């Protein structure tokens, strides 16, 4: 699945993402609101689903090599978040659906979890 398809499945609005970056294939997902939880992973997830809406989601993505961040539960990115996503070249989306439904839909489509054995 590429990021454009992922956005469709999640009915997400793309807040930042170059055309080319949206063609990136993704397979590993992390769903979390705790940045330390993400940083503690041994592997690098492709996508972060989070209910958190601060610039730290972009910093965390950048530090751990995550390609795309999806803010769930209908939140418009907070001030500065889009700008940081542009600077760090991280794909940023937001969606009305919540973390449970978003995880369920992507899992049903065959994406798998980061940190899973």
């Amino acid at each position, binding site marked *: 699945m590429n990021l454009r398809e992922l956005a469709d499945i999640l009915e997400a609005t793309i807040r930042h993402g170059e055309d*080319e970056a949206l*063609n990136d294939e993704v397979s590993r997902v992390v769903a979390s*609101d*705790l*940045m*330390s*939880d993400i*940083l*503690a992973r041994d592997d*690098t997830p492709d996508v972060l689903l*989070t209910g*958190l809406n*601060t*610039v*730290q*989601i972009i*910093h*965390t993505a*950048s*530090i*751990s*090599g995550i390609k795309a961040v999806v803010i769930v539960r209908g939140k418009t990115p907070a001030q*500065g978040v889009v700008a940081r996503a542009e600077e*760090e070249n991280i794909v940023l989306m937001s969606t009305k659906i919540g973390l449970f439904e978003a995880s369920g839909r992507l899992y049903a489509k065959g994406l798998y979890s980061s940190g899973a054995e």
Partner: protein
Amino acid sequence: MDFQLVKTRELLLELSISDVMCSQVVTIAPDAAMSTLREVLRDYGISGAPVVEDDRLVGIVSTEDLIRWLAGDDDDCSIGERMTTDPEYLFADQSVAYAIKRLEDPEGYGRFPVVDRHSKKLVGIITKGDIIGGVLLKLEQEYKEEEVRQFRASHIFEDIAADDKEIYLFYDIVGKDFDRAGKASTRMKKNLKRLGIRPDIIRRLSIASYEAEMNVVIHADQGTMKYRIKPDEIVLEVSDRGPGIEDVEKAMQTGFTTSEDWVKEMGFGAGMGLSNIKNCADKMEIRSDPGVGVTLTIRIWTEDRHETE
């Protein structure tokens, strides 16, 4: 992940069609006679040509059109009557990756005229051959640049003659400023890349550095980060002026936290930071003076050290 392959894919996305296309295009006018087409194709050794009127692309004509005309035994006529009108084309500013996708379509064409998006003028033509040539050239350039860059940065230690060599980098941390928090660590990550440090080491150091930076932002009013880069190890020293840690052993336990609720709502303060840092470091020390502050020292051994051990 295959680092080299990712770079190549990035390159295909970075390169525009205009970077690799052939801009010396043999074109033909719509009012030229069909009988002249054979010579044009033969003389230039091509199997088709864009049809252009006033610099604008109006059609494309190929060997197939010529054969069909010859086979029909028809009278001579203008190219305009036999060409394919509304030909498919690509824009000069589109990526090479996109051009490859279009050229790979089994139902599609082996060559596309290239048009400037704004002026709509024909500016070139692109085939798979142009892409291979263009990409190879670019790869060679990038490779040379990369070599020079690596030479400048990562060989810095070898280039400088001294008994002991170190690079120091300092960053200030402003306490309680959540918007700026993390910036020092992301900036540092870029510097480490430039220095040619191994990616897995960069990752461990960046994570440790980010968590340590957050700790200062959460608990103290101000602090500093000092990176000491030596040929065989990187030492990160994070000092703050804050309340200090009362019980270091307890603080190391996963899940133990003294963070206030506002910190938890920011996605931190779950008591995982110090254990994250410890997992990333080859060695970690905490010195705490209650009421004065904390100094956290993280050591990560780089390649050279591992090899000599």
